């Protein structure tokens, strides 16, 4: 899709990205974040993407697209933290395909920002498996005003 100019860049986020770093967790969909090219709004943002994928034989499944049995949800970047996470995602290999996965520190920052119970539980798993560079994480959290949330979560985890 990047090669064909449908999207400029992308990165896998959410649970599937988390699985790259921690133990497998049950999930139903694959979240793909991408920057929006033009200043289009609403569903217009997704239209070219859907057109491209349906021309390739993939079918929409609710708000996702079924790609090889996985409901893939394309999410336009909607804040600066996500923008950085996509820009700095690391390239990994999945079977014979090269793909981009958000870095562990960005994933933890995004989970803190989202702040649902399941996000907090996942942050704990990242810490437990020691896959996060604490210095880098604190630097990111500082830049995006997430230190207070981090401290509050640490208090809870004690």
């Amino acid at each position, binding site marked *: 899709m990047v090669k064909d100019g449908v999207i400029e860049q992308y990165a896998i986020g959410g649970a*599937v990205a988390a*699985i*790259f*770093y*921690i*133990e*497998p*967790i*049950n*999930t*139903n969909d694959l979240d793909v974040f991408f920057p929006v090219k033009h200043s289009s709004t609403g569903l217009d943002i997704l239209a070219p993407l859907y057109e491209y994928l349906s021309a390739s034989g993939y079918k929409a499944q609710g708000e996702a697209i079924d790609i090889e*049995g996985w409901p893939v949800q394309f999410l336009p970047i909607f804040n600066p933290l996500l923008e950085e996470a996509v820009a700095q995602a690391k390239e*990994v*290999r*999945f*079977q014979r395909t090269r793909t981009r996965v958000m870095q562990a520190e960005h994933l933890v920052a995004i989970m803190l920002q989202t702040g649902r119970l399941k996000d907090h539980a996942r942050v704990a798993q990242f810490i437990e*498996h020691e*896959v996060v560079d604490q210095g880098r994480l604190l630097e990111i959290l500082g830049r995006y005003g997430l230190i207070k949330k981090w401290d509050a979560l640490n208090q809870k985890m004690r």
Partner: protein
Amino acid sequence: MKKYPDVTELLRQKAERRKRLAQLSFEEKIAIVNKWRKLTRNIRKSQSVLEKPQLTRWTELERSSS
């Protein structure tokens, strides 16, 4: 006072298994998730088969009570 078994060793083994799982390759982990997804789908299917007669019964009950 009631005595409970010591599960320290069991919990240690469990934690170790989680560590081992975390160290698997991305492909191996996704393969595990795929298995779970299939299992979940099958469980949901069998649940919907089991739930249908019960729903009918509730509807019948509502009808008979009105």
